């Protein structure tokens, strides 16, 4: 992947776009959908958000034109030059132009508008052409089939160097910032994964790594939703379970286990349960605790059933940690409950809180 000179990028993550006119090759709705899908290619792997506006000046102004169309970079009639876009910046910056002498389509005929738009928006965000013939940002048009476009890794690495590393810097700032404003930082899901390392979405801590590594879910598990509610690891089954809303995924490393996602009520939760706030597996008992609202459940992993006598009130069993849990993980016989800016270290053995820590002390801030 390559960047424009001076590594031009947007200094904000919320960007707007406006469709100025349409090609006659496709219905308006098809054009709208192609552009929306093309922006999603990039928002799926970065913190970027794209909002369409229908009047005024947008960051990314999209238009169809032929030959000389007002920017002194004329198109050349059918085929040859298909489209072009400008790197991030004011005025023309970010704008994308499509040659209306081309035959635009939403399939393999002529040129697929979604594919060309996804490429051009890569330029609008700061990527130049890649030398990798398999990359979306390779300059020559290739039709990659109608179903399930997955952004090639070269493009993911390029755009994340622009917009995720930036977030990484912010993370460091969060740590320093946190040291002055304690309430700034909270964690809403964590999981013990791969025994020695703890994964906080989106940070990854490994005993051998000094820095917390910022990772996007999508770069590990593209099929997972952008954000999840809770996660835990079952070391016996060597699987990680992730929860979003009423769904649960089982992961074996980078792979999603067959037949997943499933519905959480298939694990024995009431059908009306909408989400899980936090989950933690306790190796010594073989039980997994699930926290939702002010209650918690206990799940017997061996029997694969919800234990009788649950749910119970969190306050009854874990007095002092508050009436809800953002995230929780287990380590060396202690449960670490996250609740806003605080972390409660709870001894499973003596059944009481032994320490109260600041949430991002986990990052040694």
């Amino acid at each position: 992947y390559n960047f424009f000179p001076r590594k031009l990028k947007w200094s904000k993550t919320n960007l707007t776009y406006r469709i100025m006119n349409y090609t006659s090759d496709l219905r308006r709705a098809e054009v709208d959908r192609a552009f929306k899908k093309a922006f999603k290619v990039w928002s799926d792997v970065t913190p970027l958000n794209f909002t369409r506006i229908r009047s005024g000046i947008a960051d990314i102004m999209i238009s169809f034109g032929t030959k000389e169309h007002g920017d002194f970079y004329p198109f050349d009639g059918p085929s040859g030059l298909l489209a072009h876009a400008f790197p991030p910046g004011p005025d023309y910056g970010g704008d994308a132009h499509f040659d209306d002498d081309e035959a635009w389509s939403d399939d393999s005929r002529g040129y697929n508008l979604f594919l060309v738009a996804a490429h051009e928006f890569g330029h609008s965000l700061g990527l130049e052409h890649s030398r990798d013939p398999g990359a979306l940002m390779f300059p020559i048009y290739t039709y990659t089939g109608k179903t399930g476009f997955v952004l090639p890794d070269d493009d993911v690495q390029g755009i994340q160097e622009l917009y995720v590393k930036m977030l990484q810097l912010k993370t460091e700032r969060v740590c320093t910032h946190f040291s002055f404003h304690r309430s700034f930082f909270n964690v809403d899901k964590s999981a013990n994964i791969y025994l020695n390392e703890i994964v906080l979405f989106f940070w990854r801590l490994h005993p051998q790594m000094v820095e917390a590594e910022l990772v996007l879910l999508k770069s590990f598990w593209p099929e997972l939703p952008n954000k999840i509610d809770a996660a835990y690891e079952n070391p016996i089954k060597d699987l990680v379970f992730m929860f979003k809303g009423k769904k649960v995924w089982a992961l074996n490393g980078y792979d999603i286990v067959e037949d997943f996602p499933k519905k959480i009520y298939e694990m024995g939760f009431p059908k009306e349960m909408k989400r899980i706030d936090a989950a933690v597996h306790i190796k010594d008992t073989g039980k997994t605790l699930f926290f939702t609202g002010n209650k918690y459940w206990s799940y017997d992993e061996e029997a694969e059933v919800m234990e009788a006598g649950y749910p119970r009130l969190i306050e009854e069993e874990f007095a002092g940690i508050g009436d809800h849990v953002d995230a929780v993980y287990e380590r060396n016989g202690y449960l670490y409950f996250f609740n806003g800016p605080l972390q409660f270290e709870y001894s499973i053995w003596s059944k009481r809180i032994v320490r109260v820590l600041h949430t991002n002390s986990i990052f040694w801030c």
Partner: protein
Amino acid sequence: IPVPLEDSHEFTEKDLQFAERYLRNHYDLRPNPAGIMRKSANTVASKLREMQAFFGLEVTGKLDEETYELMQKPRCGVPDVGE
């Protein structure tokens, strides 16, 4: 138009104009200070080498059939080198 040519291939004047326009659009080929029409051959050769390197072609600095074919493929209008 001084486009260094592979001996074996017959290019028409139109082909050469197309190749020169391609290099101007995508590899920032500029008119030679010596004059509008006269472009020093080594400027064009160096741009051809840049393009051949970018696409993983054999880097000869000469317009050959493979290089010309690639120039004709539909593509994005943004230059391949920083501008």
